[in-house]
């Protein structure tokens, strides 16, 4: 009897373990997939935040230029970490009103930041510039 009881008890435990493993596998698999996506999303958010900073830095750089010097710029690389050239940045400028003696010129500048080699912008900022503006 003691032997039979032990056998019955061991069998139940094995079934329990198998059920537990199946349950874990079924439940954890989608959760792990979601977890991976969440981690990727966190990484993308960090990149988007960094791209916004890069765009803002470029806008401030444009502010330091003479009004006449604010013009289109081809893609140039910017680093996320030193030397990695992680971002590419482009400036598109449209003259809304030519400048004149009264300094009434107005230009629209769009700064767009991409991941290097990417087509979709990671960040974009648009503003106007006028001579002696802010």
């Amino acid at each position: 009897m003691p032997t039979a009881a032990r056998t019955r008890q061991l069998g139940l435990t094995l079934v329990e373990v198998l059920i537990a493993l199946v349950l874990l596998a079924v439940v954890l698999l989608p959760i792990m997939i979601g977890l991976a996506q969440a981690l990727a999303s966190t990484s993308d958010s960090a990149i988007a935040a960094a791209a916004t900073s890069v765009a803002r830095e470029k806008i401030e750089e444009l502010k330091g230029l003479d009004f006449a010097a604010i013009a289109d710029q081809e893609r140039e690389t910017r680093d996320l970490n030193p030397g990695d050239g992680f971002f590419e940045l482009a400036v598109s400028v449209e003259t809304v009103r030519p400048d004149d003696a009264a300094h009434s010129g107005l230009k629209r500048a769009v700064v767009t930041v991409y991941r290097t080699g990417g087509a979709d912008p990671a960040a974009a900022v648009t503003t106007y510039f006028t001579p002696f503006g802010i």
Partner: protein
Amino acid sequence: MTTKRAKRSDDGFAFIAALLVMLVLAILIMAILTMAMSARLLAGSRQEYTQALYLAEAGINATMSEWRWRGAENPPEMPYEGELANGSAAGAYHVVWGVPDAGGVVTLVSRGIVNADLGGTVYNLGRTVQVDLDTDGDWAWNHVYYSDSDQPGMEDPPYADVKGGAGEVEIDGEVGDPEDFLDHPNGPSGGVMLPSPMWDVWHEWVREDLSCDPETKELIPRDPDGDGVPDPRWPDQATLPAVTDVAAYADTDRHMYWYGSSETTPLDHTAHAADSHAANDENFFMPDWYGYDNPDAYVCNTSNKPFTVTFRDGDYYGNYFVHGDIDVKSRAHIYGTLIATGNVTFYGVEKCSITPEVANPGAPCDERVYYPAIIAGADVLVRDQGVGDDDSRERLRVSGVVWAGNSYTGQASNVEACVVSPSVRLGGNYLTRYGIFNIDGCDYSPGDSPPPWFREPDRGEMQPRPRTWKEL
């Protein structure tokens, strides 16, 4: 019994342990998911905040541009609004301002709005800046001097120092009638254009003959036919050696230039930005009319020695550009424009006159355009008291606009247009009026029609608009 109960209790341990593991994992996963969502929201918020900030700045800049374009006396409608897409999001700005304070300072308040199509105020961002639009005391037109301290609204402006009693300074030939000035079609309320003081803009030949490339320090080649081959300079140009008396070179329709020595050295304008005269071994440049770091145009010449040209008794026809100062003595009559990089001083104003050129002499009187009479980079000084009655030629008579970059100080004289200068000091018996008699066969009666010096030649996109002194 005790043994059985214990065994029975052990039976479900693995299953419960698995549930506990899942619970712990679920908590960890929820935490990671929450972190990911928060990071995403924060990144999005940061981007939208940045976009809203620059939308607000865009509103300020757009308003300033529009205001400058319309002229300070003609502000845009408030609120000044516009749309400006930012990436895939709709953006907008909304700018308002208050009444100028006593010093003419206006505060612009701009609000940048991201996701404008969504409504609400979550992503609205306001940015407030203070902008000195100079809407009060420094209007160029206010420098057209008037005075009758006894009349309401005709008090002396703070920048004018009037010598002599009330009534001695006249406007339109009448004393003590404020309507003459305030309601005059060319008065401040008329909003007419003032001739530009930019010597290198309003007269093409000055620009083409004297403008220098600031990079190369070389004359800009004149190529009106556009064939790539520089053409000769103006055929009537006379570039003369240093002289101190103009009489020997006076000639009809010639454009006179006086320079100094013949040394040639590169220009270092930044080293002399505050100087009224450059050093002898450097080229001279005009005053910085517009407040740029670089002068608007350079006088490109092999010399830079400023000196004084004296106009003595005689008649002189032409436009006189003097790299230095000009002195005018009694009985000198100039039919053209005096342009000096420094001062213009009148000594002994008896029977002196300045009559500028007509740009379109064949046109009917009401279409004629006259250039300014005097443009001085620094001061204009009428030293001596004139004699004779107002309409005679017994005193200094200036039949055109006077621009003085620094100050105008005048004793009794007639200025039959206006004086524009940051500082105006007038002596008694000074007369200014917006009319003139018998100038090239045309009479312009005060108040009847806009006098000719308020019409400017068509300069296309360079046509000026009413501007403040600071803008000028």
